């Protein structure tokens, strides 16, 4: 990897971090409504994984989709406008935090029923194979989803039919407020996929380069051999499940959260790059300032965008004609 590419990964993680911090602020100001699930702490997974893709590859996500969407290349202004429920949002204000879609970046959606999007991603891979296209699809979900039937049905079909899909489980240790040990019969989540003959890996999800390497291997299998993979990324979310619970919640201790922050993906990666003399403290600060300035512009754009006109209420329910 070139120093330039490494710096790009760092700046992408930083962009997601600053974007999410600002989203939290905007939520408390009432600019953002509904459920808002922040990604802070998990940035290395989205950035590392998506950096292993080509722009024309596809991504499907769950309800914690801000990071994935930004990493895939969506315009942060449009992403924030969607959070604000404005007409210039990615989905004209109809999707909101949990339902981002972006045709331009091949981002095929955020879905809010746990596990419900895994069959959809499997279908995307099915279509790619049917159409004999060279692309692959990445499907992100939390560790809670591995207990659903949709997970097992999807992995079975993908392996049976040899589909170019990479299932990425972001094991952040908590399905809402329930620790994985109280929800899953095996803590070793990667083993949950072992009944289906897919390629399995367990990865340190706080290390952006490890994530990238692991996904690169999986993408190669998918693109060149049309074989699915199941990757478990061990990560951690610093904030609550959503904006409606405090950051540590009553289901974990402050000490635990502080302990986990020592593995912070951005700080860790900066230290590595700094040690390798790729960038110094000063340059890092400048990078951060530039991103924070950009986020100010993002907020201004979202806030200036009008609410969707009322005549859009009933558009896009069904379409006329054929396709």
């Amino acid at each position, binding site marked *: 990897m070139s120093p330039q590419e490494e710096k790009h990964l760092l700046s992408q993680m930083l962009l997601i971090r600053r974007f999410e911090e600002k989203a939290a602020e905007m939520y408390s100001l009432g600019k953002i409504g509904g459920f808002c699930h922040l990604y802070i702490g998990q940035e290395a997974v989205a950035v590392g994984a998506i950096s292993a893709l080509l722009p024309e590859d596809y991504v499907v996500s769950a309800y914690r989709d801000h990071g994935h969407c930004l990493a895939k290349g969506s315009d942060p202004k449009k992403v924030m406008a969607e959070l604000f429920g404005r007409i210039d949002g990615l989905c004209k204000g*109809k999707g909101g935090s949990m339902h981002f879609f972006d045709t331009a970046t091949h981002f095929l959606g955020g879905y809010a029923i746990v596990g*419900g999007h895994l069959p959809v991603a499997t279908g995307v891979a099915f279509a*790619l194979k049917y159409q004999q296209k060279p692309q692959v699809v990445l499907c992100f979900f939390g560790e809670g989803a591995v207990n659903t039937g949709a997970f097992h049905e999807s992995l079975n079909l993908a392996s049976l039919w040899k589909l170019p899909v990479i299932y990425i489980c972001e094991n952040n240790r908590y399905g809402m407020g329930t620790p994985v040990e109280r929800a899953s019969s095996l803590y070793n989540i990667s083993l949950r996929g072992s009944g289906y003959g897919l390629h399995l890996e367990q990865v340190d999800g706080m290390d952006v380069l490890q994530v990238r390497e692991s996904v690169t291997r999986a993408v190669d299998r998918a693109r060149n051999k049309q074989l699915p993979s199941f990757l478990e990324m061990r990560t951690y979310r610093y904030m609550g499940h959503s904006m409606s619970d405090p950051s540590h919640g009553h289901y974990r201790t402050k000490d635990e959260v502080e302990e986990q922050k020592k593995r912070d993906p951005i700080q860790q990666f900066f230290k590595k790059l700094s040690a390798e003399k790729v960038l110094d403290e000063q340059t890092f600060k400048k990078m951060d300032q530039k991103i924070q300035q950009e986020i100010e512009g993002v907020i201004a754009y979202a806030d200036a965008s009008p609410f969707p006109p009322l005549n859009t209420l009933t558009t896009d*329910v069904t379409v006329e004609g054929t*396709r």
Partner: protein
Amino acid sequence: MPSILYREALNQALREEMRRDDRVFLMGEEVGYYQGAFKVSKGLLEEFGEKRVIDTPITELGFTGVGVGAAMMGLRPVIEMMTFNFAILAMDQIVNNAVKIQYMSGGQFRVPMVVRGPGGPSRQLAAQHSQSLESWFCHVAGLKVVAPSTPKDAKGLLKSSIRDGNPIIFIEGQELYSQKGEVPEEEYLIPIGQGEIKKEGSDVTLIAWSKMLHLAMDVARDLEQKGVSVEVIDPRTLKPLDVPLLVSSIKKTHRAVIVEEGWRFCGLGAEISSILYGQAFDAFDAPIERVTGIDVPMPYAKNLEKAAIPDKERVMAAIKKTLN
């Protein structure tokens, strides 16, 4: 015009659309080598191969979701439910994904897919395999629901459904697969949303679809002998409903009876009644009568099963009530 079976008409529709458009594929349990539990897909594997006629494991949620993803990518999936009873397992994919993706994405993605298969009570199959669920689907904003009663309608409507740009629930009458009827040899389409007067009449409008249409026609023929002129209307598409056709009939007959196999409470007949009262209240000379399934899980015992679904006597009695 050749007379063919309902199942053959459906088979022709699939075959013609698959020949016309290589984005169309059929997926479901036993659709390929077994040639369909009800033989609707007979011969399709032979003609189109495993790529386009796809046998799945028993996994309704999984393969319906695969259809959703494939449709988003530009394919035209036809997903067969071995029976619509099993679609309950795929409800999350249908209700939360197929029908909402277009709206949630602000129109960026479409999900043009057909979920089809047999529905309706059938011959002592008991509670879990014998029920009418069309009202469930009609309730969901954005879903179109089609339920043809004749071979001709089945073929023309399935072809239109496959070409439509939206998710469509296409409920075939499980008891109708062996019904015969005339089907044009030349290519034709029946528009979604267009009902049909199956028999003209002037005294009362009888509204029925799928298997119940045949019961309604039977009753109408009997009453004709007794001097009562019954107009029978088959909406064919339950959603969108051909309201103008129904309203114009009410304005002619001033009476209506709705026959449905589904449960009474929150049934489709209740919605149709409400629409007709709203749009033609002054035209009515008698309250609308609804003949429906009884609000019980379907019993196995033959006599109890018969009592649970509409029959000739109940429809006759309802018509009589509107005429008095």
